């Protein structure tokens, strides 16, 4: 493993409970985040994302594995680098009767940060006007902004954000996106976990996907997506039945739908229009189908959107379906880099 801002190797964590028994949360997970990256950390509910982040930050004791943050072994040497790491973990929780200003002031005092920095970060996250209101009156989105402000307070070199867009309205999500981009532009390394996959695709240059406590994909976003590009095209034509016959006869893999066809393994979409045009079938729509992060995520984690199948957390389905519920091995994926 090359040196990185965050290095996790073989992380394992099992929770034991009298009521719920033994539950493997993280099962040999690896993560590498290099300096300057905006790194997306994706996984279904219960896949081990938050446990991984908590273990990295010393809040949960790992059973096995090696972790390093900014070159320091975690959690043993975490105090040496804590001043350079800003983090929010899962839903933000604050003492409701304190104002946002007091909340951050106390953290600044405890962390040896100049109290003057409090006003700066409150302005940065858009809470300056309401900083002297009690936190219990805040919406979830405002609490989220306060959590981000607390992470920014110490001018971190590494920012770890667990679901930062949770509870934010569309404008807030855009502001958060701009904030992360701005921080990345300033050289801050950002690790962000989120369920809003479109957001991750917009702001992250690298991504790691976790499922059932294991890494199932990692690497630059473009590479991960490219690994799942089946070179498919969506085709609409004036005579769909004839079009399907012609394309099949031409040796293409065609899947028929009610109002369109999906043609697989098309290296050049012009082949489709030429094949049909030569036989007098006119193409009305020809759209290359590129995979997005959401479809890759759903395929990798075995969590398809299917209203007919009640899904358990982290993709387990009541019956085994090799197409959607399979446990995917790390080496199966072309997009994996390590």
């Amino acid at each position, binding site marked *: 493993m090359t040196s990185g801002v965050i290095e996790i190797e073989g992380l394992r964590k099992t*929770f034991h409970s009298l009521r719920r028994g033994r539950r493997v949360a993280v099962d040999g997970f690896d993560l590498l985040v290099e300096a300057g990256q905006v790194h997306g950390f994706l996984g279904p509910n219960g896949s081990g994302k938050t*446990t991984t982040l*908590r273990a990295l*930050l*010393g*809040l*949960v*004791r790992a059973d096995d594995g090696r972790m390093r943050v900014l070159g320091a072994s975690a*959690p043993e040497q*975490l*105090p040496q680098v*804590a001043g350079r*790491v800003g*983090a929010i*973990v899962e839903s*933000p*929780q*604050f*003492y*409701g*009767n*304190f104002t946002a200003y*007091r909340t951050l*002031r*106390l*953290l600044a*005092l*405890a*962390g*040896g940060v100049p109290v003057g920095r409090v006003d700066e970060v409150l302005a940065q996250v858009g809470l300056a006007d309401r900083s002297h209101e009690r936190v219990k009156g805040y919406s979830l989105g405002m609490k989220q902004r306060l959590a981000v402000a*607390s992470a920014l307070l*110490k001018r971190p070199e590494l920012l770890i954000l667990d679901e930062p867009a949770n509870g934010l309205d569309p404008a807030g999500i855009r502001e958060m996106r701009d904030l992360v981009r701005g921080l990345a532009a300033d050289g801050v390394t950002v690790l962000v976990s989120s369920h809003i996959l479109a957001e991750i695709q917009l702001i992250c240059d690298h991504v790691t996907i976790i499922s059932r406590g294991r890494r199932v994909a990692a690497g630059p976003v473009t590479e991960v997506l490219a690994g799942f590009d089946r070179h498919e095209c969506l085709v609409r034509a004036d005579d769909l039945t004839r079009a399907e016959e012609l394309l099949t006869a031409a040796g293409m893999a065609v899947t028929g739908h009610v109002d369109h066809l999906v043609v697989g393994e098309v290296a050049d979409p012009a082949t489709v229009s030429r094949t049909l045009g030569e036989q007098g079938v006119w193409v009305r729509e020809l759209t290359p189908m590129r995979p997005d992060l959401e479809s890759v995520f759903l395929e990798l984690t075995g969590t398809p959107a299917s209203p007919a199948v009640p899904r358990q957390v982290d993709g387990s389905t009541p019956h085994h379906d090799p197409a959607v519920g399979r446990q995917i091995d790390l080496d199966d994926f072309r997009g994996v880099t390590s």
Partner: protein
Amino acid sequence: MNLIRAEVERLAARRFVQLMVVLLVFAFGVTAATTLAGSHQPSAVELAEAQRQAAADRRGMELQHERCLARDRGEPRPTGEYTYLPPDCSDIDPGRRDQSPVAADYLSGVFTFTNQARPLLYFLIAYLVLFGFLVGASYIGADLNSGGVVNLLLWRPRRLTVLGAKLGTLLGAVLVLSVLASLAYLVTFWVIAQVAGYPGPTNAAFWAELGAIWGRGLTLVLLTAAAGFSIATVGRHTSAALGALAAYVVVWELGGRIVLQIVEVARPDQLMLSSYVSVWLAGEVGFWDNNACAGPVTGYCDGSYTLTWQPAMAVLLLLTAGLTAAAFTLFRRRDLI
């Protein structure tokens, strides 16, 4: 130092702490006001009459003791004298009494400092013990429950340092408040006695005894604050401390006591924490063992026994130290999820 400063500010800003301080000031004010309203400075005549009655009572006690000794010497009792005399004359020896009658005992409607200082101090200590336990439990309980501890650990990832700073801050703050409150309390009532009551005969022994109660009381306040803090840390919630206290009182102090009586365990009070608390505050308490004289006993049987503050101190210290050690051990190893 920054951490301590932040924790002091956090503690002082907590509404529950502020509410408890307001209640303390309110109770203090009401007690002082009613005392002031119900007391007057005794006139010279009232004082002289009270002193005369006290002297007469002291003389009567001495006479009774002398008669008892005369009986033991075999001298005949005076004609018409039928006062009960105990078998052991030392029982009525005025020199062995805790307190001889004084003028203050005969001053009606007059607040007498020397008579009232001890119960007043006990009341204050009881309040401060409650304050220490509740504030100690809620301070860490709310912080664990609201995510404050996690936020702090993201800044200072040294668990024992963080918990130690919180406990140290709590004990320091409770001690300062208790010292200030008790001094203000006693000084206020001393002034009330001076201007609208009667200070009473104070001497070095009186102040030493009051000081000892005060010192032991403050120690108890700190121990209960640490215990509340530790139980809430172990249980991760304020209510864990309150529940543990309620469970102990109901299950052991009430239920256990009944069971111990049924199975006729010797000296059951020795097994109750409340006994050691009262012994610690009073310095020494006598108990009676119902089972000591049960069954065939020949001759005189004395079921009484005394507990002193030394074993009480050992019990209370060991209990608090055990709870604190458990809290720190668990907190160091616990997954904060």
